[in-house]
């Protein structure tokens, strides 16, 4: 039997590439449609017509959009993200530090939330329709129905202001020890974990339950297998596809969706960078951030698809 995996994976990568192309077009032209002129916004209250005109020329804003798109795409292919309108620093410089921060936060949150969510989801499925299951199910809905900024503020009040266990801000500059790492990241990670876990728990539980209803799990039971064995050995490997998809979707939130957490904990991540960029109409920066989010999303989704393909021996 010839393996279909390479061609399937290739297909997924191709799809991701097509999507990325669509995104790049959409992003560029959507951002150029933003009203308000960069020069005017940069000057704020000081925007006199002469000053605006001067700045526009200085920033090459008077060239047609299509030409700028060509430059931009050309630059992207060479790894050049352009130069920020707002402060003339290469976008790559602005983005790199922030991206690293975002990835760090996302990574730590993933390390905490994925095992937690999978454990809760799997155990809830394992003891389906027990009190435990009900508590987990209701609690997950409960948690996702509290706005994130309430959770974050509450966490700050309790842990930073009253108990003074943790800093209210996430200082991530001089982390030299594990406890320092914990202190800096504890609260953002906790808040985000609440946000992203609920969906993963729900999906994992549903996917495992779905496979628990299959004849081969019943067969395992009839072979005398224990409940954990049935779930872990038989149900879980076959639920990997949908679970990895749910995990990828939830984690994609950690790239661009964390704006509120970044704001409240003053964490210098990439979402805040993009918000700044939008308010200053810093088009190269907006475009780069948007592309990064889309790229991250596609990486996650494509990885999930590939995991699903690899976890299915029928395709091997």
């Amino acid at each position, binding site marked *: 039997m010839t393996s279909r995996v390479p061609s399937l994976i290739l297909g997924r990568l191709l799809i991701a590439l097509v*999507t990325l192309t669509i995104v790049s077009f959409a*992003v560029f032209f959507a*951002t150029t449609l933003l009203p308000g002129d960069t020069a005017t916004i940069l000057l704020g209250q000081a925007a006199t017509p002469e000053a605006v005109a001067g700045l526009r020329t200085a920033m090459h804003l008077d060239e047609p959009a299509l030409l700028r798109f060509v430059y931009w795409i050309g630059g992207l292919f060479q790894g050049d993200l352009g130069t920020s309108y707002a402060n003339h620093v290469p976008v790559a410089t602005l983005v790199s530090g922030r991206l690293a921060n975002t990835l760090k936060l996302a990574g730590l949150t993933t390390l905490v939330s994925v095992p937690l969510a999978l454990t809760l989801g799997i155990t809830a499925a394992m003891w389906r329709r027990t009190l435990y299951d009900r508590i987990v199910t209701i609690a997950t809905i409960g948690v996702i*129905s*509290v706005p994130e900024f309430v959770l974050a503020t509450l966490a700050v009040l309790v842990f930073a202001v009253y108990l003074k266990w943790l800093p209210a801000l996430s200082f991530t500059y001089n982390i030299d020890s594990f406890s320092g790492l914990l202190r800096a990241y504890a609260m953002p990670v906790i808040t985000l974990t609440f946000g992203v876990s609920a969906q993963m728990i729900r999906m994992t539980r549903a*996917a495992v339950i779905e496979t628990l209803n299959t004849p081969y799990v019943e067969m395992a039971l009839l072979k005398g297998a224990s409940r954990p064995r049935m779930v872990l050995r038989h149900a879980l490997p076959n639920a990997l596809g949908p679970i990895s998809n749910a995990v990828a979707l939830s984690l994609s939130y950690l790239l661009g969706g964390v704006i509120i957490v970044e704001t409240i904990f003053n964490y210098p991540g990439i979402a805040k960078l993009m918000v700044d960029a*939008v308010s200053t109409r810093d088009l190269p920066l907006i475009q780069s*951030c948007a592309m990064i989010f889309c790229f991250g999303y596609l990486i996650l989704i494509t990885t999930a698809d590939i995991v699903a393909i690899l976890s299915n021996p029928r395709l091997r």
Partner: protein
Amino acid sequence: MKTHSSTEPRASTGSLTAWSGYRINLVGLAAFSVVLFWALVALFAPYITPHSVGEMIDLDYFGPMRPGLWLGSDYLGRDMLSRIIYGARYTVGISLAAVSIACFTGVVLGMTSAVLRGPVDMVVSRILDAMNSIPSKLFGLMVVAAVGSSIPVLILTLSVIYVPGAYRFSRALAINIDTMDFIMVARIRGERLPYLIASEILPNIIGPVLADLGLRFVFIVLLLSGLSFLGLGVQPPYADWGALVRENIGGLPFAAPAVIVPSLAIATLTISVNLLIDNLPQKIRDRSAS
């Protein structure tokens, strides 16, 4: 992609049988009461608000609950009860409108893609995938920047954000249904696309789609509050619940009702909607009883 269609048998406890063979779950009934309560509050808001929404009646701010100001006062000394009542209008109304538009569009597109396959599927899937890859809050931010904030814009923005999700979900379901022989039968009968999706596929995926709609409703209510954080929201003096929480968040350290009550309102509504959908009255199909 497998999706979280709930195929598990329902728990047999806590249910009662009523009306011509419909089984009603007690949890569902309770959830329905809460949803109905908020729906009525939203509907009759103008008649039951004790004060005008914008009127500043309390000299203090973040005032406690007391007679006359049953839910305390907000950050400007306005009556929280009146604001919550009006907030119900916006939260329920906007979220419902948005979730309906999003699900309708997403589900129709999803079923169409599943039935037509081929290039249509490919193109629609890729475009919606691309849309999905833009974080929702940042998309909202761009919209505010581009066209400003008004209720139609808000509803449309929220809808657009949730179309890809509804699409992905319903397409996956519809593809499973599409492989069934009865679809094949309808096709070789010569049926056209509208009949196929509306009459053959939709009735079979409506259950999971409704469950998904419930979850999406929760996310939309929350996103609405998140967007108010970014300045896309209802015009003052009115405010949706998320905005109420947001504008009164400063009262959290004082445990002011102004921040706690709208949070509770959001939680009761979203949890009830989900419980209601999970426990919808079910027509008893009892073969052995017949």
